[in-house]
């Protein structure tokens, strides 16, 4: 990541943080805009989860990775501790690869 891109993300993020405290006395965000902004974050992140799980470049990532994420997801739903969830996901993928699954 070029430094300039990193600084752009940092500056933009800081501006978003400062805008609320700076303008809250003069402006009010419309409710529908707040609603939209609140849903935008999970929408982007779930898409990131889906593409990072299933795709590699322009194609399918193979079965080992999604299988690992699935195991981790099930354990997370069952509220197992965070480190257990992540290690189980990676271990599943690693074992499948060891067994020759792509």
């Amino acid at each position, binding site marked *: 990541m070029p430094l300039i891109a990193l600084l752009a993300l940092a500056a933009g993020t800081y501006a978003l943080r400062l805008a609320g405290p700076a303008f809250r006395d003069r402006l009010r965000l419309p409710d529908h805009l707040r609603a939209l902004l609140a849903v935008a974050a999970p929408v982007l992140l779930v898409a990131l989860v889906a593409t990072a799980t299933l795709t590699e470049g322009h194609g399918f990532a193979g079965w080992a990775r999604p299988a690992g*994420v699935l195991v981790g997801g099930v354990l997370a739903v069952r509220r197992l501790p965070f*480190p257990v969830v992540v290690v189980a996901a990676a271990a599943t993928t690693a074992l499948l690869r060891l067994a020759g699954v792509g």
Partner: protein
Amino acid sequence: MSSSWRTLDRGTIHDIALVCLADSLVGASFGAISVSGGLPAWVPIALSVLVFAGGSQFAAVGVLLAGGGPLAAVATGLVLNTRLLPLGFAVGDVLGGPRWSRLLGAHLLTDESAAFALRHQDPARRRAAFWLCGLALFACWNLSVVLGAVAGGAIGDTAALGLDAAFPTVLLALLLPALADRATRNATFLGAAAALAATPFLPPGLPVLLALVGLLPALLTRPATAERATAADRATAPDRSAVTAPAAAPAPEAPRCP
């Protein structure tokens, strides 16, 4: 400020410590995944200090590791951080006082610090909770990212260890609380389907941004959405994951990140 921290009850301080612990695990994962994925160590560390927003850090690194350009990484990170705008409106009152403290405090605005501020009515306690959570998180988050980055550099064959499965798993675990809401879940599924369908055709990084089409149904039924005021409530509601929206009553078992 140290004197005002004494106005905080022990429960709040205890909860802040737990959130810091959970975030440290996420931060260490972030550092390790970034470096083992091939990024130089300064990238995750600088992102953590300067951006200090876990969701967008993961997103930017995720886009980069997938081969996307820096522009797509910045755009995705910024869209994710737009939620800081309503958060700032909700808790901006804690950032009174001298200009330097307002400018510094703004950088400490995260889902967690906002959530802890929103738990209290009394202005002094709101301020104390915000600052304690913000400062403690800043320290824990950056320290853990550095440690994770160092550890990640020592890892050899990342594919054989299945580490490429760790990144989506960390994000998924963080997102689960947000997916309890049906409208949010539907929007995310629609967006993810669009992103997956576009992956064979678009340059890396853009499919994730395309996922924003998942918001269209909510846009088209705007009046109903506004009446239910789902997000307006959500901006002050408890039990939400940190990467998505504020969590007013942090559940210790739920991992968060700033």
